């Protein structure tokens, strides 16, 4: 999508033209995949749910009503609902396979790198224990590097509520981190 082309027009064209929808897909597939991956913890389900998200978007884009929010907010909402259903439906053990990310870093100093990897693993584990809202906020903030305003649009909250949730999330994460480290040292 070109900068000059307003998003509303782009979306209205995507409703009838599969080519334009294809452009929309290319623009957001990485972001949606990233979001789902951090929420599910494995590539297999991330691929599955990303496909479902875009199929649903394609199916319902005809009825999409522009309420002044970016189309990404709508796509994230679909992905969020699908992930919520996935968590609700699955009876299998939770898979935590986020190790590749931690291992993908460069190894300057093996010892400090090992420590960092350990910290990152713990942080991911703690993050995934948090409520869906808090996880969503952290992913949008750090992975997608969105502003509080954009996050508020996606999460359907006010900017103030997002700030407050972010603050509480960080404090809760710090608390959980300290508790975990304390129990490890004992």
């Amino acid at each position: 999508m070109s900068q000059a082309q307003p998003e509303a027009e782009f979306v209205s064209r995507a409703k009838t033209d599969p080519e334009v929808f294809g452009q929309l897909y290319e623009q957001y597939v990485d972001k949606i995949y990233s979001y789902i991956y951090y929420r599910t913890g494995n590539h297999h389900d991330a691929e599955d749910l990303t496909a479902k998200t875009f199929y649903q978007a394609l199916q319902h884009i005809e009825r999409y009503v522009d309420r002044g929010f970016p189309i990404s907010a709508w796509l994230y909402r679909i992905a969020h609902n699908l992930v919520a259903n996935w968590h609700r439906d699955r009876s299998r053990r939770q898979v935590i396979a986020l190790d590749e990310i931690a291992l993908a870093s460069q190894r300057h100093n093996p010892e400090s790198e090992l420590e960092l990897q350990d910290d990152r693993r713990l942080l991911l584990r703690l993050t995934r224990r948090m409520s869906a809202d808090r996880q969503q906020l952290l992913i949008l903030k750090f992975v997608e590097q969105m502003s509080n305003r954009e996050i508020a649009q996606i999460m359907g909250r006010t900017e103030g509520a997002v700030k407050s949730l972010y603050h509480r999330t960080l404090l809760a994460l710090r608390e959980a981190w300290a508790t975990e480290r304390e129990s490890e040292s004992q």
Partner: protein
Amino acid sequence: MQGEELDCAGEEHLRSLMPQMMLNTRIAQSLGKEIRRAAAQKMRYRAAMRGRMPLEDVVIELRKLVRLLCKTLVPVRPRSEFARSLGEQLQVRGTELAAGRQRRWLWLMVGSLLSLLGVATALLLRRRNGRLQTGKPVGVM
């Protein structure tokens, strides 16, 4: 004699006040308990506050946490093969849906036209039958 009467009257008066005094004592006792409980609570709170981290340390820890979050929560890309094949599948599905929508519109138009035609025919037939019954030739007003 008069003094004894006075004493008796005083005792009577005191006796009548006894239930009220007992009530007051109970209130005073419960009030004392409440005060002791509140004081203990405040002392515990102060002790907890002493054990807490200073605000500057909390801020430093939060900054460290944010830095670690930045290093940990990094964007992940899907496999290029997956992204490409999903894009193609969506393209096919999109074309099918568009064709389906067009077909739906076509059928809707045909249906509407047929129903209009039906209504017009019915009206014509009714008019013709009405004219036949009154004996007037068709087409004569």
